[in-house]
């Protein structure tokens, strides 16, 4: 029998993607995990000392900068949830008040088109103590105002949170708007006929209906926080001291700053584990939703 | 034109068996309609023939050639889909040409065939339009044209008229029939609409539960349904079925209807004659065969009127029984005189009733 090309050509067309996945993703992850067990420094050294194969990880958790990084991960994660809340409020308001919808949407979403490096540079400039917003507030007569957040270790993260909210709230607004649009229009009419107040409508009906949108937003935000790097480099470059280090920054610093690829790999593996911890609920939620949609379709 | 043969076809999706040991021959030049309710396996059977779905077991022959493992395009058939499936980005001409240029035909031949099909279907003026600029009926014509240009012997139709409104449907029905009469292709046509089946088919295969219940000409299917399923599936309103018992009345077999005093004289019936007393049977009476007020028929039924439905051209009386209402279709002029609750007497001629074995459901 002749070869049935109709059966083979789609499989052949998938070979490049399979190769990329196998080599660049699956293989590379394995490779990095392997390197994290070695004592490689500038160049990979593939010998593992099985007596202390977790050496890099032990070092990592004794490292003060790593502890700071993990702490900042939580701080930025919690702080950025404001972006989700703001996004929802903006979406709800735009949805209710149709006037100027296009205009506001355009404004709220433009930060997404701006690179985080540019965003960080602008925010750093605005945080400039002698020439930036602080100075502006002082000149207005509010002399006690302090906006020099980036210079102090205990407030620098707040500066980064503020810039993150500025950058991200439009994104969550777009997701929330999509969620709001998918709510059946008759619910609003029914609520109006029932005379339900706007607050109760949102708190008792709309927000519960949008719980999956909220969950998706929260998970995407967490994944974004784990990856946060550009904004740190642009705003504080990790400083003052190591007060604004984040896992991604720590990992890349271990690679290029300390030239220790085994140590960097170990930090990357922990990043992967954190991502997995966030990602698995996403998979479960997605699978559940798909199943539910199919059940409804039946 | 080729013959199509299905030999011992089976199809399973995972553990679910959709078709099993199915045999069917479609003769050269025949217009075969696969008719059945949704989920009966008729579309699966068509897709197996088209090669869009792989068979689990069995063989499909077209013109004596085993095509079971061939690609759809190599089977020598063309198909018209329910949603027309026109390529939205191509013009009508592009739609007609796509299959031909895949066959590496030369350009003049392609142009000749496109012109021929366009003329035949009266779509010459639409050739440069996109599908989105066409009406439903025009799309349907293009879809048929796309099949015609391929110049193959076997045509498959998958519920092609179900997306059209009632008036267009009647028009296209005639059109397809006309094309078949002119071109004499072998056609396999899937539908759940019995009117389409009755008007167009040379033969109908009635399917249910993945099994072919009966194959026959429209007249055979209507007049001599092979079993209770076919009897009740064909005809609207569907056939009235009443369970009964055969008894001997002075040597003549009669059927006593359960719940009625009525006796039906079976001696005039072609096959009812030989029934042994005591046999449980089902009597099927078509609504349109009942005669109001006729007192001298072998089957007489007298029931109170539940309600009457007039549809303009005719009227249906629904008579009260212990179970499903008994339907009788009559001339609307005759329906006016009867009021709800009044008894109506309906008579049936001997050759008009159908008898089925109560146990197997098969025709006696």
């Amino acid at each position, binding site marked *: 029998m002749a070869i049935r090309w109709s059966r083979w050509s789609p499989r052949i067309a998938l070979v490049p993607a399979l190769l990329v996945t196998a080599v660049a993703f699956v293989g590379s992850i394995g490779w990095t995990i392997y390197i994290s067990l070695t004592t490689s420094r500038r160049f990979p050294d593939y010998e593992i000392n099985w007596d202390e194969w977790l050496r890099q990880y032990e070092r990592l958790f004794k490292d003060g900068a790593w502890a700071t990084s993990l702490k900042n991960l939580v701080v930025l994660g919690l702080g950025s949830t404001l972006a989700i809340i703001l996004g929802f409020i903006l979406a709800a308001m735009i949805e209710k008040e149709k006037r100027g919808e296009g205009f506001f949407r355009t404004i709220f979403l433009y930060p997404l088109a701006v690179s985080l490096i540019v965003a960080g540079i602008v925010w750093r*400039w605005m945080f400039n103590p002698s020439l930036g917003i602080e100075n502006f507030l002082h000149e207005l007569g509010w002399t006690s105002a302090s906006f020099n957040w980036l210079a102090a270790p205990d407030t620098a993260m707040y500066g980064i949170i503020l810039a993150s909210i500025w950058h991200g709230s439009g994104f969550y607004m777009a997701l929330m708007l999509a969620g709001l649009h998918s709510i059946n229009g008759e619910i609003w009419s029914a609520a109006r006929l029932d005379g339900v107040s706007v607050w109760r409508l949102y708190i008792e009906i709309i927000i519960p209906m949008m719980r999956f949108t909220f969950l998706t937003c929260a998970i995407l935000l967490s994944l974004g926080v784990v990856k946060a790097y*550009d904004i740190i480099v642009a705003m504080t470059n990790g400083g003052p001291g190591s007060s604004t280090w984040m896992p991604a920054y720590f990992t890349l610093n271990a690679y290029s700053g300390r030239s220790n690829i085994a140590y960097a790999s170990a930090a990357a593996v922990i990043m992967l584990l954190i991502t997995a911890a966030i990602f698995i609920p996403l998979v479960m939620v997605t699978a559940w939703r798909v199943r539910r949609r199919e059940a409804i379709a039946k | 034109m080729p013959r199509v043969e299905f030999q011992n076809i089976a199809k399973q999706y995972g553990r679910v068996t959709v078709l099993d040991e199915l045999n069917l021959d479609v003769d050269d030049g025949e217009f075969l309609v696969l008719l059945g309710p949704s989920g009966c396996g008729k579309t699966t059977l068509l897709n197996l023939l088209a090669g869009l779905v792989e068979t689990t077991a069995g063989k499909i022959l077209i013109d004596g050639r085993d095509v079971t493992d061939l690609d759809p395009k190599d089977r020598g058939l063309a198909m018209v889909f329910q949603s027309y499936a026109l390529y939205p980005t191509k013009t009508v001409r592009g739609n007609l040409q796509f299959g031909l240029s895949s066959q590496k035909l030369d350009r003049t031949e392609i142009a000749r065939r496109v012109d021929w099909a366009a003329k035949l279907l009266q779509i010459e003026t639409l050739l440069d339009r996109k599908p989105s600029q066409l009406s439903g009926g025009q799309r349907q014509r293009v879809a048929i044209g796309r099949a015609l240009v391929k110049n193959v012997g076997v045509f498959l139709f998958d519920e092609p008229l179900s997306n059209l409104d009632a008036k267009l449907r009647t028009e296209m029905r005639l059109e397809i029939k006309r094309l078949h009469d002119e071109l004499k292709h072998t056609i396999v046509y899937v539908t759940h609409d019995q009117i389409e089946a009755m008007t167009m088919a040379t033969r109908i295969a009635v399917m249910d539960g993945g099994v072919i219940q009966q194959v026959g000409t429209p007249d055979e299917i209507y007049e001599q349904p092979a079993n209770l399923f076919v009897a009740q599936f064909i005809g609207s309103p569907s056939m009235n079925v009443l369970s009964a018992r055969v008894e001997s009345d002075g040597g003549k077999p009669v059927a006593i209807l359960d719940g009625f005093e009525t006796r039906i004289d079976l001696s005039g019936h072609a096959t009812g004659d030989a029934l042994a007393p005591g046999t449980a049977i089902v009597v099927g009476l078509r609504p349109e065969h009942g005669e109001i007020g006729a007192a001298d028929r072998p089957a007489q039924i007298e029931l109170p009127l539940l309600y009457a439905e007039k549809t303009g051209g005719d009227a249906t009386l629904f008579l009260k029984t212990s179970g499903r209402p008994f339907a009788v279709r009559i001339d609307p002029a005759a329906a006016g005189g009867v009021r709800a609750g009044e008894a109506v007497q309906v008579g049936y001629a001997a050759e008009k009733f159908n008898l089925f074995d109560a146990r197997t459901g098969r025709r006696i």
Partner: protein
Amino acid sequence: MTDILPLEPVRRTFRDYPKKPRKIRGSSIAILVFLTMCALFIAIPLYVIIVTSIKEMSQIIQGEIFSLPTKVTFEPWWKAWNEVCSGVQCEGVKVGFINSLMILFPSLVLSIGLSMVTGYALALWNIRWAGTFLFVLFTAAFVPFQIIMIPLIIMTGIIKVYGTIWGVAIVHAVLAMPLLTLIFRNYYKDIPNEIMSAALMDSGSFWRIFFEIILPMSGNILIVVLILQITSIWNDFIIGLYFGGIGTKPMTVILANSVITSRGEISYNVDMAAALLTAIPPLVIYFVLGKFFVQGITAGAIKG
């Protein structure tokens, strides 16, 4: 097939009624005020970057960050484009601009070509392990870059593209592949089954169906993905930083080097001009093709 009597249905014209004026309620005003304040907050950085970039340093050092320039000057723009230093190289951000463009085209072609065909094969052809592969891709789309970075550096080194434009472009394509494949696959999944069946009966050829039927139907998603990819490649920093060599670093890296690690006297107006120049290409795309941009980022986010 025409009617015997083509009767026109009865029609009538309707009169125009004057528009009722829409009432503005208190709650509407409150909402609009709040939205305007938020819009101001979001718009301020853009305003600041623009005005600072056209001010003279003499005005900037007076500390009026929000005031309009007393004298508009485009010298900072010229300096940023031509003179700004990245490390020891003082040729302005234009070097980065050219590099970014040169990275952009091959990586667009590679990433979109690869993921389009993959998405098409997975969505419309019967492949038994498609579900498993999609799940792996879904996972890969979320993997942090750091976990695969070091092996990628080693491998691009082995195939001798590390530090070149091609190296950066290939890494972009690899990283974008899972997400873009999922986007294309979800788009193609909605193409009616029967169109694919018709194409199978007409041609049956994987590539012919792709180029003649599917590709012409992909216009919309192609624009969405194109915009998504252009902005994310243009705005990328990490890949450019770690895979770009001397003279092949993209604009963001040049910008970061010149602004963040520069020593000596700081010209804020030049910094802002350099930042603005870097931000202009994606901003232009955003303001011109905003609808597709939003579709892109939400398509990237909501999957499944």
